[in-house]
C-alpha cells in the first residue's frame, strides 16, 4: 500500500535531483540580494522576505518557465542578462534596469533556479 502511495506521489510530482547552483553563484547570497534590490516590490518570490509584489509575474517556479519577460528563452545566462539589462531584451518592458553587477546577478540566478 505504501508502495502504491509512493508510486502515485512520484508520478504526480516528478523526481528532481538538486545539482550544482546555476552559473556557479551562491543561492543564499542571491536570496539576500533579491531583497536588497527590492525585487519583491514587483514580484512575489518564495523564500524572500516581503516579496509579494504584483506588478510583474510571480517568480514561483521560475526555474521551469520557458520564457523570461515573455521574450527570452530561459537559460541561466539569459536570466542574468535579463536581470542586468531588461531593456536590451525588450525595449518596452516595465522592468527597470536596477544596476545589478554580473556577480550579483549570478547569485540571484543561482537562487531563482532553486524555485522549481
Amino acid at each position, binding site marked *: 500500500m505504501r508502495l502504491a502511495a509512493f*508510486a502515485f506521489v512520484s*508520478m504526480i510530482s516528478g523526481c528532481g535531483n538538486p545539482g550544482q547552483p546555476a552559473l556557479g553563484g551562491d543561492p543564499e547570497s542571491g536570496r539576500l540580494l533579491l531583497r536588497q534590490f527590492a525585487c519583491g516590490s514587483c514580484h512575489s518570490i518564495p523564500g524572500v522576505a516581503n516579496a509579494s509584489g*504584483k*506588478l510583474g*509575474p*510571480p517568480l514561483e517556479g521560475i526555474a521551469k518557465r520557458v520564457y523570461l519577460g*515573455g521574450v527570452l528563452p530561459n537559460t541561466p545566462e539569459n536570466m542574468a542578462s535579463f536581470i542586468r539589462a531588461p531593456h536590451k531584451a525588450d525595449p*518596452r*518592458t516595465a522592468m527597470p534596469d536596477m544596476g545589478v553587477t554580473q556577480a550579483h546577478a549570478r547569485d540571484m540566478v543561482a537562487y531563482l533556479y532553486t524555485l522549481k
Partner: protein
Amino acid sequence: MKCLGGFLLLAALAGAGFVYSGWYDISATDQHLAPTYRLLDYAMRRSVSFRARDIEAPDLKDERRIQTGAFLYRQHCLHCHGAPGVPPAPFALGMTPVPVPLVHTARAWSPAEMFWVIKEGIKMTGMPAWKYRMSDAQIWSVVAFLPAMARLTPAQYADLRIMPLEPAQDVLEDKPSAKRGEQAINQYACVTCHEIPGIVGANAPVGPPLKGVASRVMLGGVLPNSPENMVRWLRFPRQIAPLTAMPDLGVTEQDARDIAAYLATLR
C-alpha cells in the same frame, strides 16, 4: 464483505501498478483491442445521439448553403477526411483513430448529429470543436454539403467549382460571460502555456501562471492591466509587444471579452 474489500483493493493496486509501469502502449501505431474499440465507439455514438437530440436542422437542400459548405469542407475537413478520390493528408493517416471518410458518415448519421460533432468536437479522437472557428450557419452548410458530396463521383468532385467565401464579420452577440470564457480558454489553447486556476490542461510553464492575474499591475510586462487592455492583449499581443513569444491566436472580440471576464475572477 471483507473479502470483496480485499479484492477491490487488489484490483486497484494492480491497476495502479499497470499504469505506473508504463506497460500500456500509448503509441498511435498500436491498435485498440477489438472490445476496447467497440466500447469506445459505442460510448461515442450514444453520447452524440443523446446530446444532439434537441437540435433541429434548417433547410439543407438550399444550393447556396451547399456551395458554402463545399468551400468550408475543402478548407477545414479535406486534410483529415479526404473526399471522393482524394486521400487524407499524410499526417492524418498517422492518427489513431484514423479519421473516417465522411461520404459514409453522411449516410449513417443524422444532420443534427453531424452538426453537433462538428461544433463540439470529440475528446481524444483528434476531431476538433469548430464552435470557435465557424458560425452555426457555416457548420450547417458543411452538414448540407456532406450528403451532396456523397452523391458525387470522384470525377464530379474534381470538377466541382468551389467559390471563395466572404470573410465572416466579427459580431458581438452578448455581454461578457466568465462561464463562456472558461470554455474559450481551452479552445484558444491558453492552458497549454499558462497555469490557470480552474482550467484542466497541459499547464506547461511557457508563460507566467495566471493565478492572481486580475490583481497584477502589468500585462506581458508592457501594458497596464485594465479590462480593456486585457481584451487588446488577448487579441493582439504581438502588436503591443512585438518581441513577445505569445502568439496572436485569432481571438474574436466576443471571445476575448469572455476570456477576460473569466480572468477577472482570478484575484
